[in-house]
């Protein structure tokens, strides 16, 4: 039957091939699905599924040694509310994030403004300021830990000018500040480059007009530069805050959360509970808390984008 038809078709108009099911459009669609499959599997297996599971696990107690997995309802959440460490942990997390954002953005902006001057050799300085970004995180943290020892390089330097430095990483007043500073110098180069790009995007005519009107440099900076780079300020602060919530290696190497709980940030506490004390259910509950904080910050970002930022390119 088909043979006969085929023959009839080919007899009528030989060069036209039989229209295939695989039109260009269909083939295109198939390629699309094939291309996204690995990414999609990854997103489902390593983002979505674990996110659902983390909520599910937070309602359970899992003892890895006895291999028991029991439903406990809201017990872990009650524990979260009763845990005397949680306020201290949240305080440390907030302090670290705020300290990091303020110091990081201020320094990044200062460096960017300096590098934006018409000076020879700014490329060299840009490279130097950026270099810690590519130094292995652990190497950077270890050498700072070495420098901040009681008898380390920083106190040696202070001794030379007859100042007795504190035991930076072991005293309550300076441990958090030290961790913040180590992290700021590690990554401020990234924000610096973003600010530099934003500064170079400010139209020169605006500066000239302001100067003709006799505006002082500080006024120009506050009234022209800052509003025009506000989208970048918002962006960098969000990146920096979310990044600050993920800090782990620095705490683990420099202070182990101490002294006391003064530098125990949420991720470090989560790690301690789940992987040192084997309280996996409670660890999952802390993960849910971390997720909610990140989510809230992201929503806040969208709200602020609408209201606060001067313009959006």
């Amino acid at each position, binding site marked *: 039957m088909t043979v006969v038809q085929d023959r009839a078709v080919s007899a009528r108009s030989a060069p036209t091939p039989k229209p295939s099911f695989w039109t*260009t459009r269909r*083939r*295109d*669609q198939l390629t*699309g*699905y094939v*291309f*996204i499959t*690995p*990414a*999609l599997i*990854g*997103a489902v297996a*390593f*983002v*979505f*599924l*674990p996110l659902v599971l983390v909520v599910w696990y937070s309602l359970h107690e*899992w003892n890895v040694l006895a291999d028991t997995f029991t439903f406990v309802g809201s017990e872990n959440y009650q524990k979260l509310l009763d845990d005397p460490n949680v306020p201290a942990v949240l305080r440390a997390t907030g302090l670290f994030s705020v300290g990091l954002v303020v110091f990081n953005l201020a320094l990044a902006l*200062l*460096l960017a403004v*300096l590098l934006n*001057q018409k*000076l020879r050799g700014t490329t060299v*300085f840009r490279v*130097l300021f*950026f*270099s*810690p970004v*590519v*130094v*292995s*995180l*652990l*190497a*950077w943290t*270890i*050498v700072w830990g*070495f*420098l901040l020892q009681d008898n380390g*390089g920083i106190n*040696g330097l202070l*001794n030379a000018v007859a100042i007795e430095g504190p035991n930076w990483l072991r005293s309550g007043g300076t441990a958090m500040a030290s961790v913040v500073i180590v992290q700021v*110098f590690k990554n401020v180069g990234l924000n610096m*480059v*973003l600010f530099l790009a934003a500064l170079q995007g400010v139209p020169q005519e605006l500066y000239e007009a302001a100067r003709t009107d006799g505006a002082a440099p500080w006024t120009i900076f506050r009234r022209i530069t800052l509003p025009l780079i506000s989208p970048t300020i918002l962006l960098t602060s969000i*990146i920096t805050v979310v990044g600050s919530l*993920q800090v*782990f*290696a620095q705490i*683990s*190497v420099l202070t182990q959360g101490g002294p006391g709980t003064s530098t125990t940030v949420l991720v470090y506490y989560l790690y301690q509970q*789940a*992987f040192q004390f084997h309280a*996996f259910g409670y660890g*999952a509950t802390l993960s*849910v808390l*971390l*997720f909610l904080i*990140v989510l809230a910050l992201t929503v806040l970002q969208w709200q602020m984008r609408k209201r606060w930022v001067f313009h959006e390119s």
Partner: protein
Amino acid sequence: MSPKTKIFLYGLLSVLCIPFVFPTWWMITSSFKPNAEIFAPSLWPSDWTVEPWRQVFTMQPFAQQYFNSAYIAVVVTLGTLAVAAMAGYAFARIRFRGQNVLFLVVLTGLLIPSEVTIVPLFRIFNSLGLVDTHWPLILVPMLGPPSVLATFIMRQFFITLPGELEEAARMDGLGRPAIFRRIALPLARPALGAVAIFTFLHSWNLYLEPVVYISSQTKYTLPQALTQFTDAYQGQLWNVQLSAASMTAIPVLIVFVIAQRQFIEGLAHTGLKG
């Protein structure tokens, strides 16, 4: 600009450089100091020794650990490039049903830092018998949140490609996979470079995951190994530790100095999109 202002600016920039450059300098020079001199505030070792550099290899299987970090970072980088380039291209240039919903599904990965999911992922890998293997360190970054960011960056790049190029290729009878491989990918080299740098450094610096998953010394990655150079009383052997840290940092720093423009622009660009 008056010469005075210039001198002031150069002075200020040089002073500001100290906390950025000095630690790396201190790390490398101190690694050549004998233990007796380690806390001496000398900018240059008065008594050079390569003993700490040798001890790095006798105290731990450091060459093995170095290899572990290197091969994991290379596999993760190549894998991420493949996954992200394909998905990014499809989301940017091919029309297919459910595209927007699927893109949203993938994009949610940007919202969820990997620290949030480490507890359930540990349980999954544990039940698969993959704890204390390198699989979690390869699979999670290659397919999880960092790869999602890479996919997003690639999509943003492919969207900017002019459609006429593909039209012309189609006229020449090229199919979609061929267009992707021969037209789109070669044009995407800057974006691929940025993703490669960012992915490699991410894997090279990964710390929480190895600490959680890996327990055998021969399977350690570098960040984990660096913290383990202690004497019998858990006291830190600073010069040995700093030698190992220098060995970890110097190769990347050398590549950075050679390709600083690509590094700075690439990393700032990927950070911006994140």
